[in-house]
């Protein structure tokens, strides 16, 4: 962000929403934690190859705020490192899905005709399968690697962008500035990406922010079902799943990673809501 934005009207509107400001603060803390994990966490080596059979399953204490897990690793450290994976998954998945979905939505909404029908029918098909079930099916079929997990999530996420952008593009298709561009002979490409797309960016950006949270949520659900990244990589969903087996005796194993997921999704949601009101949509 350039400093200029902090003086803008938009920022003023954002700032007037206390929850949005809180969300931005929370998000900043989470991102900082994730980035500076090697410096900030008490036992950085516990995030990787590490076992200490002499220190397993310790309840929260001053040495281990979130307790230790079944092979003696510090849960706090692993939760913070878990944020790294979560954030990475969120950005990579949407980095793939959003541009694809937006492009298809633009094309379908602008071109109309057979192209529109084909794209939107395919979109309908994808949207007719509950996201989690589709991701499970795709992941179940492929080898379980991180890359495949990212692909599976991207595959199920693009249609949402297509549908949103399609609806908005259709509304804009006959607007004066589009017609004017057509009249002066601008190329389709120019009209799509230079004339129409900029008008959609606020809503795409808002959705992107909100979705970052939800991608993390769905990814954690997949890990919870045993379709996540492999050990010893710290992964919040897998940690909840593994810890859930040891309820209620070792409650700290599922509870802290669960709270961590909640907080990061909350942060993205609040920021997304803030952006929405900043761009003047809804109230």
């Amino acid at each position, binding site marked *: 962000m350039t400093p200029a934005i902090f003086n803008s009207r938009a920022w003023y509107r954002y700032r007037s929403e206390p929850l949005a400001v809180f969300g931005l603060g929370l998000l900043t803390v989470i991102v900082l934690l994730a980035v500076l994990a090697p410096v900030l966490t008490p036992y950085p080596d516990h995030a990787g190859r590490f076992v200490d059979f002499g220190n397993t399953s310790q309840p929260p204490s001053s040495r281990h705020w979130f307790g230790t897990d079944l092979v003696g690793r510090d849960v706090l450290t692993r939760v913070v490192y878990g944020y790294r994976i979560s954030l990475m998954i969120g950005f990579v998945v949407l980095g793939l899905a959003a541009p694809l979905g937006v492009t298809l939505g633009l094309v379908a909404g602008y071109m109309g005709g057979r192209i529109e029908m084909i794209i939107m*029918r395919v979109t309908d098909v994808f949207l007719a399968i509950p996201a*989690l*079930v589709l991701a499970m099916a795709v*992941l*179940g*079929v492929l*080898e379980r690697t991180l890359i495949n997990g990212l692909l599976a999530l991207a595959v199920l996420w693009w249609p949402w962008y297509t549908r949103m952008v399609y609806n908005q593009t259709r509304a804009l298709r006959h607007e004066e500035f589009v017609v004017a561009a057509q009249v002066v002979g601008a190329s389709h490409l120019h009209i799509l990406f230079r004339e129409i797309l900029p008008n959609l960016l606020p809503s795409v950006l808002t959705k992107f922010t909100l979705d970052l949270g939800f991608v993390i949520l769905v990814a954690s659900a997949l890990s919870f079902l045993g379709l996540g990244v492999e050990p010893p990589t710290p992964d919040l969903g897998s940690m*909840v799943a593994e810890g859930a087996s040891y309820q*209620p005796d070792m409650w700290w194993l599922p509870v802290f990673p669960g709270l961590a997921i909640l907080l990061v999704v909350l942060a993205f949601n609040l920021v997304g809501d803030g952006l929405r009101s900043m761009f003047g949509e809804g109230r």
Partner: protein
Amino acid sequence: MNLWRYFLGRLLGSLIVLVGVSILIFGVARLIPGDPARIAMGPMASAEQVELMRERLRLNEPVVVQYGGFVRDLLRGDLGISLYTKRPVTSDILSTLPATLELVIAAALIMTLIGVPLGVVAARYRNSGVDRAANLAALLGVVTPSFVWAIFLMLVFAFALDIFPIAGRVSRSAELPPTITSLLILDSAIAGMWPTVLDALRHIVLPAFALAMGGLGTAARLTRANMSEVYDRQYIQLARAFAYTEREIACKYALRPAMVPTLTILGLDFAIMLGNAFLVEMVFAWPGMARYGVEVIIRKDLNGIVGTVLVISAFFLIINMIIDIVVAYMNPRIRFQNR
């Protein structure tokens, strides 16, 4: 264009989508690396036995031929034999689907009966402390994964406070009613077996809440947003001027128009719940489709995967069709819009 033609159009559209879903999921299932026939026959089976199974699954034929055979069987209501349970997929699904439906229906009820009133209250007292609290509560519902809700609820209400059962659909010792609707609570009520009804209700509370929390938040936030918009309209001011009570205004003038977009979103939430039911069922050992779904996926049971996904999608499409029609009925303008 009348409602009937609108309905037919929607039905046709849904059918086309369902065909698309079947092609998509059939294709995905055929991508499976490794040998599904070998997995199905188990480690001790001889090579001839595996080959026999491969023939039976039509695995030696081109994918298009396989799909043709699949559609022919499907039209006869046959989804093939599950490689995991060795029983017809149709009967596997039919035996587990009612439990899932019961759970999802309970969750949908909770979501509507708590979420909408919460939104109404928030809209009425906009920007007050009540509104902010409701907003935050709704937000927490949305941002917490349903399996985390499930585990938190289980830890607190089943383990720590011990007021609800930990798992299952009904106590082992409970007397079971004759099957009429396959929905246990309903069947028990029909049979007048109140102890069983109560027992089943106690079992369904935690999983249903865990499943409903996300949708509950959405429903509340949406109701609030839509009602706020209506509240700004002049006729509400007018109603106020005519000294209608606030409750009457909320119920008569603000809630009804606000219900239309809310209903639409609830339809989408239903789909999300069908997916999330997988997670909640796993935590609470609910005897629904989840364990079956997860098992068939893990075991690369071709027929099981295709059947499960197809049935869930069909349900999703049907629910959305119903909701679209209800919405069209409530708001005739929609019928004339070109979808």
